[in-house]
């Protein structure tokens, strides 16, 4: 039996008095795609950020590929290397060209040679449909293109898990599709993905499970069909009626 890529056990996080994550336990299996939904402030971003240790949970266990990670003992850079993250606002490096953005991690972190990194980066840019933009600076790109570069940049580290935090919510509606298509593609290739998104179509098409979060708790879990078509919890019902 294969290990889950991520296992959270009783994860708790506070910002001051605010209990942002309340006893979160879940597992994400290899090649699984899970989607987190929930109202603003329910803790979705914080949960993703705890998984790659951008935030530190005060209580609970985080297991990555069968190994519990103690943030004080482990070299977190090595852990993060294998967990890609895509942000709502892209966070491309504006002083670097597209290709420089993509090779930065491999060259600086993984120690890949420039030549090899460039070769692989071009393949990734091809995969996200942007090989002709390799030498542009990010400011010349549309939001959708920026996000696709950001995905390529994360993939360049050959991650075993990809975290997406509302990757399409800063985009003009007509640009959402191109980013979702890249993500669907990725899912079909077997990438393990944890996605915060309210794109129901995407969730239905590629997600194995949907988690509904409310005030720091996961209060309902199920397949996309179960959650979207027949939510059980009144709060889930209310939330879905509001966003649909």
């Amino acid at each position, binding site marked *: 039996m294969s290990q889950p890529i991520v296992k959270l056990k009783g994860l708790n996080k506070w910002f001051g008095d605010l209990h942002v994550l309340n006893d979160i336990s879940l597992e994400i299996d290899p090649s699984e795609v899970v989607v987190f939904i929930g109202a603003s402030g329910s803790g979705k971003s914080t949960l993703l950020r705890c998984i790659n240790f951008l935030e530190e949970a005060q209580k609970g266990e985080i297991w990555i590929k069968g190994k519990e990670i103690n943030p004080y003992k482990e070299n977190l*850079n090595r852990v993060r290397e*294998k967990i890609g*993250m895509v942000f709502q606002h892209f*966070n491309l490096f504006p002083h*670097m060209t597209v290709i420089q953005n993509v090779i*930065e991690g491999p060259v600086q*972190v993984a120690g890949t040679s420039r030549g090899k990194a460039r070769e692989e980066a071009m393949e990734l840019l091809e995969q996200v449909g942007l090989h002709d933009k390799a030498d542009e*600076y990010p400011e010349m790109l549309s939001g959708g293109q920026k996000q696709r570069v950001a995905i390529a940049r994360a993939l360049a580290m050959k991650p075993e898990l990809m975290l997406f935090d509302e990757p399409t919510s800063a985009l003009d509606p007509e640009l959402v599709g191109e980013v979702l298509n890249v993500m669907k593609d990725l899912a079909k290739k077997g990438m393990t993905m944890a996605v915060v998104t309210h794109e129901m179509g995407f969730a239905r098409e590629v997600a194995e499970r949907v988690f509904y979060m409310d005030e720091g708790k996961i209060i309902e879990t199920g397949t996309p069909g179960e959650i979207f078509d027949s939510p059980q919890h009144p709060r889930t019902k209310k939330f879905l009626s509001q966003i649909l």
Partner: protein
Amino acid sequence: MAVLEFIKTYSPLFLPAIWITIQLTVLSIILGIVIGLITALAKLTRVKLLNRIADLYITVIRGTPLIVQLSFIYFALPGIGIELSAFVAGSIGLGIHNGAYIAEIFRGGIQSISTGQTEAARSMGMTQGQTMRRIILPQALRRVIPPLGNQFIIALKDSSLAGLITVNEIYMTSRRLGASTYQQMEFYMLAGAFYLILVTLFSVVVQKVEKTLETSKRQSSEIL
């Protein structure tokens, strides 16, 4: 005519002083940048002790007159066995002085870069040092050029205070010549003119640098 005659006669006597002013300024800026960068990073780390030291340095330097700082280094330090030439004392004193202001400029520049940049870098496994060197500083550098240029001009003018600890720079020279020829007013005006010319030249250089950085983003990201 008398004015032109005066300028023609005495300007050459200022050449060594102008050279010293330029050296003082450049050295104090280089030293200031080094101290400023270290101090800014010290202020931004999570190590409390370093924060405190940086704070103390900035508070003391910004809270006391430059002339007191220079006098301390040149006139008081020999009392504990540290004897420096006027020029060295002046360069170090001005450098330490500039460092405190430059530190605040760097800190502002670094803090103006969005945290998303740091998160993106850290999320792909870059260390804190790599993130600073490869991602934050190259962007911050571009933003601090205008205030830094402004500080350079202040540093140039402030270098005149080194004259009071006997460095033979422009101001000191004008005083000396003025006193010996009883033409103090003319010499002060001449000194002022030299400063004005230097400041103008400096501004042009700063603008050039700003332009260069703007057009060749790539290079600056590879310098660091």
